[in-house]
């Protein structure tokens, strides 16, 4: 009996996991672009967008995966229907370049900060500037007057 319960619990957990992993139409609609108006499907009421939404629902009902549906739509309309560029080939640059710029910027800021702190350090360790004799005489006179 315990074994049967454990099996039922395991099956329920697996089913729940599978249900959670299955894409919803709205997920896909946010990741695909209307080829006529250029906005994501969830933001578009253009006739072609409505047709694509219907296609997504039909394919999901038929058991197609997210990747399959995307591939089928790319085959029909080209890679422009993907809201995010693919992470392969030339399009990979769209993902890598922002990070490369970020890293380059961080390195640049680091180098400038290092050079700046070094210059300040050099300035601090230098010999003190000599006081103008006239100014020194006037300061001494003022101090004497203040103390008296």
């Amino acid at each position: 009996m315990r074994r049967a319960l454990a099996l039922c619990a395991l099956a329920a957990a697996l089913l729940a996991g599978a249900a959670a992993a299955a894409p919803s139409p709205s997920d896909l609609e946010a990741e695909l672009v209307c080829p006529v108006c250029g906005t994501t499907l969830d933001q578009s009421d253009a006739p072609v967008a409505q047709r694509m939404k219907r296609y997504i629902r039909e394919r999901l009902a038929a058991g197609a995966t997210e990747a399959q549906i995307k591939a089928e739509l790319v085959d029909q309309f080209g890679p422009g229907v993907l809201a995010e560029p693919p992470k392969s080939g030339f399009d990979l640059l769209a993902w890598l370049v922002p990070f490369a710029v970020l890293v380059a910027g961080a390195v640049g800021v680091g180098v400038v900060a290092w050079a700046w702190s070094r210059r300040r350090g050099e300035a601090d360790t230098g010999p003190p500037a000599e006081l103008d004799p006239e100014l020194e005489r006037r300061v001494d006179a003022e101090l004497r007057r203040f103390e008296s």
Partner: protein
Amino acid sequence: MTGRVQRVGQAIALAGVATLLGLLVWKVAFDNEEGAADKLAKGELVYAPAFSLDRLDRDGTLSLASLRGKPLVVNFWASWCGPCKDEAPVLQQTYERYRNQGLVVLGVDVKDFREDARRFMRRYGITYPVVYDGKGSTIGRWGIQGYPETFFVDRSGKLVGERIAGAVDIERNREAFERGIALALGDQS
């Protein structure tokens, strides 16, 4: 050392600014290519932009170059487009009426599902050649702004008449449609 770092930093910054400026100039100068429709509207001599696309009415591909020497009515459409349904019978009748004079009606199905397009063709009894441009590769060079749009091409490959935006053969463009066909056929009258 710090002076050198500063100079390198300045050089990098200048190079970045120069690159961005170059991209801006390139974008303004070269990325605003006019479509054939715009040139036609200005009265410029313009040849029909070439394409080679898969056929929907049968297997294989069809290139515009293979139709050189024939007068053409080139119609850009999609199955999801309402006015395309209105004009489909007119285009089919035009094809049947002028076919013996060599006129070819050529459909270009744009941004559509192949199966939807084939269903559309069966429903409206379309027998003229239709090619499939799901990615919309022809749009920019032809200057397509909406669906449907129709162009007329004479035997030398030049665009003639005027571009018809919207369904053909309704009150507002019947005359332009008939004149376009006449010009494509080489009838100057």
